[in-house]
């Protein structure tokens, strides 16, 4: 398996990335997650990069994670503790900006 950049528990965020920014691309992150913070829940393995598969290019394997997102701020609906678990490839994630600690 390809070495993974993130470990379980790491704070990440989904890249706010769109074809409109960089030309034709197949980005399989749900729109409601782009730019949103989450945490690595599990390293799922390595799979062919869908961005390449979509254009019939040679598709190197990329690490796939299960990432956990807390329901607020994604959606107002739900109860405290509810969350959403989503498969996201490593290159569609970035480290979360350092959290500013309350003084």
């Amino acid at each position, binding site marked *: 398996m390809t070495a993974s950049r993130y470990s379980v528990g790491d704070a990440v965020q989904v890249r706010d990335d769109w074809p409109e920014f960089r030309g034709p691309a197949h980005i*399989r*992150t*749900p729109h*409601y997650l782009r730019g949103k913070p989450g945490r690595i829940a599990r390293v*799922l*393995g390595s*799979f062919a990069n*869908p961005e390449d598969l979509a254009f019939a290019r040679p598709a190197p394997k990329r690490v*796939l994670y299960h990432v956990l997102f807390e329901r607020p701020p994604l*959606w107002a*609906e*739900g*109860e405290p*503790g*509810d*969350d*959403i*678990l*989503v*498969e*996201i*490839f490593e290159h569609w994630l970035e480290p979360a900006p350092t959290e500013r600690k309350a003084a």
Partner: protein
Amino acid sequence: MSAPARPESIAKLEKLVASLVARGVVSEADLAEAQARTDRASPEIGAHMVARAWLDPEWRRMMLANGTEAAERMGVSMAGAPPLGVLEDKPGLHHLVVCTLCSCYPRAVLGYPPSWYKSFEYRSRAVRDPRGVLVEWGTALAPGTQVRVVDSTADYRWMVLPMRPAGTKGWSEDQLAALVTRDVLVGVALPQVPVALAAE
């Protein structure tokens, strides 16, 4: 998506198949075998995996660690199929599966997805308002249960391992499996014990 195929689409498909067969990419036998495999798959496979997990802790551990292996041991050929992941419901945690991007579904162990699973309504509402969807399904979670929506968007396919309902002490694998419907395996419903059958 549920509209009947148009004649021109069927003609196009037949042309494509003829072309693939002529080039030796697939044979008619390959296609028939793939079709038969898809037709054999049904939620009964997933239901028996769950019932076995309720009865056998060793099987449960193996299935949670490697759903693909569990499916293989049920006699399902997983070669070429996406890996299977199993989501374990626990006291205080309920899983609900949706694919917001398309309609990813663990066909190998659940068969064809129902049309509602592929509908825009389910795909948009399950992720935004899962509790509202569960209420409409008539599914009442124990108070204080956390809802975890699993948006199945990539290379895995996911099924839910629900909690064994009360009143099923001493039941056989077949009896237990009968409680595990397709909807239970997606997480929109919970296993229900018919009142007349409930043991203490």
